């Protein structure tokens, strides 16, 4: 369960002054559901998810993840979260198995539980063929599987995916989207950011449209269609975002 309450993040930029990357966002994700955070580049998706994963600290507001406050108990939050993004790369000089074990240990698993869990995950993701190969020698698909194994090793109740398929080929992206569906089927709370409409249509139970750090619309796909009077998600997105859209600057 994730409850986001009036979450905000401001950055200070020497040239542009104060930037409100996330501005008073509130929403709720439930177990067994996939919440899709849909937004253009620079809309505030990554900052929101980083705050939920306690990688960044909110300026205002808070979020409660599995009963733990992101501001007060960041370590407990992280122990309940699996975080995967294109910016979460692998340690090149560790083998796939060593990397997953490392994160298992950091999550406090004892050696026998860790080894059992690693064996089970490697079997399930069909990773035994490259378990002892160094991460810098893995193909993109193998790397993605290793990243997935890393997020699963401590069996978190909440999974956070930040544009996980960005830049991946169709087959590798499919491994990820299948995995996201499986997480929902296992009863996990899943939050997922993207700007790829087809992924949202296929995966998400609830969709939140974010722009300029503000949550502009929220609901199931059916609810959004009804509200916007449009069937196509891209049209709905444009209709919601266009009045607020400002060309993002690089930051």
């Amino acid at each position, binding site marked *: 369960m994730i409850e986001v309450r009036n979450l905000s993040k401001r950055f200070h930029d020497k040239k542009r002054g104060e930037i409100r990357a996330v501005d008073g966002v509130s929403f709720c994700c439930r177990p067994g559901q996939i919440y899709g955070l849909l937004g253009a580049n620079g809309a505030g998706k990554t900052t929101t998810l*980083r705050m939920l*994963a306690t*990688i*960044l*600290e909110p300026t205002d507001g808070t979020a409660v993840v599995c009963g733990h406050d992101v501001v007060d108990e960041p*370590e*407990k939050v*992280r*122990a309940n*979260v699996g*975080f995967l*993004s294109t*910016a*979460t*790369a*692998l*340690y*090149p*000089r*560790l083998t796939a198995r*060593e990397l997953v074990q*490392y*994160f298992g*240990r*950091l*999550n*406090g698993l004892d050696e026998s539980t860790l080894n059992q869990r690693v064996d089970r995950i490697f079997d399930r993701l069909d990773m035994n063929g490259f378990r002892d190969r*160094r991460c810098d020698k893995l193909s993109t698909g193998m790397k993605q599987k290793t990243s997935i194994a*890393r997020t699963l090793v401590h069996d978190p109740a909440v999974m956070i995916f930040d544009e996980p398929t960005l830049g991946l080929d169709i087959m590798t992206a499919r491994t990820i989207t299948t995995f996201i569906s499986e997480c929902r089927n296992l009863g996990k709370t899943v939050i997922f950011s993207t700007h790829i409409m087809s992924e949202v249509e296929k995966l998400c139970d609830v969709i939140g449209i974010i722009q300029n750090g503000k949550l502009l619309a929220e609901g199931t796909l059916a609810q959004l269609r009804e509200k916007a009077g449009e069937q196509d998600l891209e049209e709905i997105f444009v209709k919601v975002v266009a009045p607020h859209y400002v060309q993002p600057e690089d930051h």
Partner: protein
Amino acid sequence: MASIRNIFIVYRKELTEALRDRRTLVSSIVIPLLAFPVLAFGLGYMVVELIGEANRLPSRIMILGGEDSADVVARLKSGKDIRVVPTASNYVDLISDKKVRAVVDIPEGFQDSIAQGGRPEVKIYMFSGDMKSTIAANRVEKVILAYRDSEISQQLAAQHLPDSLMKPLKIEQKNVVSPEKVAGETFGGLIPYLAILMCMTGAMYPAMDLTAGEKERATMETILSSPIKRTHLVLGKFFLVLTASLTTAMLSVLSMGASFAAMSHFVKVEGVAEGVPIIPMHVSTVVGVFAVAVPIAVLFSATLITISLFAKTFKEAQSYLTPMTFVVLVPAIGAVLPGVELTPKLALVPILNASLLCKELVTGTYHWNYIVLIFASTSVYAAVALFLAVKMFQRESVLFST
């Protein structure tokens, strides 16, 4: 307990990665192990060969004047390590071009003047700073002085006076300290200089790799998403950098000690008895130097981590840290300079204090008040640097400066 476990988990993982990284292995192990034998034997052999060659070969010299001083000219010409070349007016150019190593100008009536108790002035023209020219000038001077002494000796004998009148008194400088102390005083400054420099070089690569390198490889966010506290994470990294720093320093000092000990059997150094290592490496010396090196290594490791944390890439970190080498080199060299000795004020100057203390330890001098003061002050500097490193690791603007 959980915090120590987490720090150890991070340390073990960083160590595994470091041992698999060729660049870390080269900078921390291979270079310190190989640099000194190569330097000691390569450079030492070259120097010995060059000096040997200069001493073996006869010096090309030229004589100006001396037409009325046949004896001294004959002595010069018959000198076994001197080869007299024909007189030429462009002798300055010839010296400058190293075609002639020294030119001796014998004044008119030189022999007669000596015979009559005069003080004739002989000039030797040479290339100052050139080793072969210096050797040639010394050889010429030796022949002239030998001639003078024999002449005076004859005059004294003719007047039935003893030879000792020529040198009415004798002065002898006598060393009364052990050969180890002499060696320590002569070369001892090298050990702290080396240990401090190597603490720095050993820490530099891993400090960059574990911070800016991690940002560049996009693994920073991966590790920050794990439940480990950032303080534990930075401490795990810090201990790895510290290990690399101390390993490099230890291997360098041992390798240097072994190289110089081996060299002392081949090269004779003035004032040091044969067979005594040029740089004495007693167990107590090694322990003492390392006791001082530990807070220095802590200071370097924490400082380098803090600085390279601000860099977005490995290259950027390199450009930040390279000037640091000079910051460290200046005080480290200070201790090698002759005449610089520990004072209460210098005992508070970081790096220089440790360098001077190591120099004293090497010569077997233990000023306990300085030892306590230096260890305490360096530990305080090291603690401040470590505190800063931990603080910087909490700052989002530093961690995410991508």
